[in-house]
């Protein structure tokens, strides 16, 4: 009985965990750029979508070439032929996945490097404006260029790399494990990155780039590397999502996604990866709990469209955290160096160093 119930829950649990992994990769990379580097990359969804388009387009074109399908990647017969081909040839399909990940990471990194051109020249709020609208513009272009992801209709027939396992539940479980491994890998890489001397440089650039410059540090290089690494992790997250959904749809990549990811970073705590783990978990859980299908599980049918409530809560979270707890749920910690360990053990240093919040201005005439 217990086992049967668990068995029916598999699609729900695996979907949740895969989405958590994708959101985690997105929020960790945004945290690297915005939390540690102070670069307001609010066009994060654009870099995610690059990975998605690269993976979708590459896989569809190569498989089309193998199966010799006619009518281009968007035609339904070609899409059907791809999905039929995949279960019979596990090597090809797993190879395509690996190849997509590598190419997407590279292309994402290149776009991140390109984004560092305005990032070095603009004031941070102007940079935020530019990057937010890049997210919108990317969608406009892909909607109209049918060759990238079939425009408005969307590209289908991108087979899951574990489709050859035949049993859908087994496939979902295997893919979820893979997604979590990727998320864990991103976490480790970013953790190593920010705890290295380079991470300390990044923080110092965020706090005052002039001081970093006077100490002989190369500020543009620090910013460029943060954007390159962040964007390529975001692109890999996009690939993971595409192979899970088995399709790419341009209208999925709206600036709203960036804002949800931003709320995860702010809720968890800027410049704190453990906080982001928590923030992403809370917001993903919220995303899943406030959905019509979740309510119907409990036999409740709602008249309202609950998707709207989800975004209202996201907005409220952003404002409330900024107002009442700007450091987030878990505040920023000093960079983990061997020296810090020794200092902690000797009791020389307090282990916290978060955002300093100046005292309120007096309200004489407010």
């Amino acid at each position, binding site marked *: 009985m217990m086992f049967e119930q668990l068995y029916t829950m598999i699609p729900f649990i695996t979907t949740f965990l895969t989405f958590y992994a994708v959101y985690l990769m997105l929020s960790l990379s945004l945290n690297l750029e915005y939390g540690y580097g102070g670069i307001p990359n609010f066009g994060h969804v654009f870099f995610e979508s690059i990975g998605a388009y690269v993976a979708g387009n590459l896989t569809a074109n190569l498989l089309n070439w193998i199966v010799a399908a006619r009518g281009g990647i968007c035609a339904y017969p070609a899409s059907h032929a791809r999905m039929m081909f995949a279960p019979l040839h596990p090597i090809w399909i797993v190879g395509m996945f690996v190849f997509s990940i590598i190419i997407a990471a590279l292309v994402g990194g290149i776009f991140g490097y390109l984004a560092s051109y305005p990032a070095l020249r603009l004031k941070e709020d102007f940079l935020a404006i530019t990057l937010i609208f890049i997210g919108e513009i990317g969608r406009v272009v892909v909607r109209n260029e049918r060759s990238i992801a079939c425009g408005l209709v969307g590209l289908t027939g991108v087979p899951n790399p574990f489709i050859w396992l035949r049993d859908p539940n087994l496939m979902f479980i295997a893919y979820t494990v893979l997604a979590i491994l990727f998320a864990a890998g991103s976490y480790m890489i970013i953790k190593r990155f920010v705890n290295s001397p380079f991470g300390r440089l990044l923080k110092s650039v965020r706090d005052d780039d002039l001081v970093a410059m006077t100490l002989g540090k190369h500020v543009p290089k620090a910013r460029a590397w943060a954007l390159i690494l962040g964007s390529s992790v975001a692109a890999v997250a996009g690939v993971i999502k595409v192979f899970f959904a088995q399709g790419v749809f341009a209208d999925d990549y709206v600036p709203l996604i960036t804002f949800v990811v931003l709320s995860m970073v702010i809720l968890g705590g800027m410049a704190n990866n453990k906080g982001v783990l928590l923030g992403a978990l809370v917001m993903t859980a919220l995303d899943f709990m406030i959905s019509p299908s979740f309510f119907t599980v409990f036999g409740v049918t709602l008249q309202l469209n609950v998707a709207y409530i989800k975004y209202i809560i996201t907005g409220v979270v952003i404002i409330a955290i*900024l107002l009442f707890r700007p450091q987030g749920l878990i505040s920023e910690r000093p960079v983990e160096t061997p020296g810090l360990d020794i200092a902690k053990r000797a009791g020389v240093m307090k282990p916290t160093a978060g955002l300093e919040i100046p005292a309120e201005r007096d309200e004489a005439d407010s």
Partner: protein
Amino acid sequence: MDLILPVLNSITLGSLFTLMALGLTLTFSVTRIVNFAHAELVAIGGYVTAVVTNYIGLSIYESLVAAFVASAILALAMDELAFKPLYKRGSPTLFLLVASIGIDLVVRFSLFLTADATGNIIIQTKVPIQPLMPLGKTYLTTFQVVVIPLTLAVVVVLHALFHYTKVGKALRAMADNEDLARVSGIKIYTLRRLAWMLVGGTAGLAGGLWSIYLVIDPDFGWNSLLRIFAASILGGFTSFWGTVIGGYIIGFAENLGIATLNTWFGVSTAYAPLISFAIIVAVFLIKPSGFAGIDLSSLLAKLRGLHKNLEPEAEG
């Protein structure tokens, strides 16, 4: 090709974009906030106008006043509940920008929720637009006769308020250096409230006029935001006259410009937002002060200087 209709449309759209962007310019020049929630002030204005006219049955002018008031109240609430507390705590400008994104989400999706529940996801103010006089193959309508002078009137009033009254002087002082303005006895928070009410009011008015011109949905504010920002940034983000020029340039670029590109180069008209985006990037990278940064008198002097330099050669 008959140019009168596209030119007339461009001017109308340009006026609407200008009216929307004036508030953004005012926000940035007085409070230094890059306000993404500005889109929702426009959207609320549009909805209030449409609902008051269609359901309550007031005249269009009364509805526009209602839109002005509603958006002004919303703008004031935004500032009092979110921006002012953050500002008083000395938050960096980027925090205020992020807060404005949060406010945008709350207002936009609350509007979606109510509009969806009452069956008004798509709405248009029911006001007949009548043709006044023939103009080539098309007509000059009552809408254009109202919108274009109204926009210019708002700009003139704002300009006069800023440059020829004591309140305007205080506002400019506050924009320049808030602490210094405060020690000179200017009540900065009272002025701040006034500024936000003007911001909300003009945005609401623009949204109301837009809802007469075209069908609106709760996303229309957000979808116009790129053009609003482009117009304001083109005007240097701080100058009213710059914003007017910017607004009309965007109006022409998104209408006549994309149509020209479409006929000559086969560019899809769906790429219209790319023009606004290219303008934003170009202005940021090349001349962040926009049109406001172009000093006309020095430019004239330079031209004259050039002329003088040429003269001796002509004599010699």
